[in-house]
């Protein structure tokens, strides 16, 4: 990661901007929702690999800063949603796309399936992800 940051510095013009945009480890609540109601059914659980990636990315930026390559100008957070039509689609997605990083416990799966099945006809399922957006100035 540090080598990649050095390479980015090389191709950026002086005073160029690096934007670090990525999901970070935090609560990842699962909700069932419709136009009329929203119900939290549990939280996705972070697996060690996801946490390690997060730590490594932060350490790489710290190294780049201490090497004098970049200066941080701003840092902020926001949330975004992943939305699925059904509970089973969410389970399948998490199993195939996020399998190394997060998992759903059985209780959350059951609660999500039930809430989705018993809810309004337009019920959908979503996971909320916390995002980091940081702006760095190339020295």
């Amino acid at each position, binding site marked *: 990661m540090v080598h*990649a940051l050095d390479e980015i510095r090389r191709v950026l013009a002086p005073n160029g901007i690096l934007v670090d945009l990525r999901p970070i480890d935090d609560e990842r609540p699962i909700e069932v929702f419709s136009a009329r109601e929203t119900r939290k059914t549990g939280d996705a659980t972070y697996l060690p690999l996801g946490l390690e990636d997060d730590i490594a990315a932060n350490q790489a930026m710290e190294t780049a800063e201490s090497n004098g390559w970049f200066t941080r100008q701003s840092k902020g957070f926001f949330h*975004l949603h992943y939305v*699925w039509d059904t509970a089973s689609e969410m389970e399948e997605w998490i199993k195939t796309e996020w399998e190394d990083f997060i998992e759903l416990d059985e209780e959350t799966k059951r609660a999500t399936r039930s809430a989705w099945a018993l809810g309004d006809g337009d019920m959908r399922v979503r996971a909320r992800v916390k995002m980091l*957006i940081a702006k760095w100035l190339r020295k």
Partner: protein
Amino acid sequence: MTLIKDPEQNETKHLHKTVDFTGKRVLEIGCGEGRLTWQYASASFSTIGLDPDKDSLRVATIDRPSDMDNKIYFANAQAEHIPFENETFDIAILAWSL
């Protein structure tokens, strides 16, 4: 499987709040299929999307809006070996890739 990622477009809003792309030479590292690229590239002078996954870049090339053919380009490469000269870009975006 139906998935909608960021229906509120919070990512795009925060990206535009953070940087002004107008007339800038942009490098996006980890562009994937171009989901984020389409959200800002029209304002840029030029945008290069970099990704190590050839299949994703194939999709991105097919999905590229026709009016951006001369503005957005893609390259199959990793962030550790960026195939461009020194000081080529004004903005680099690490898109979910650090």
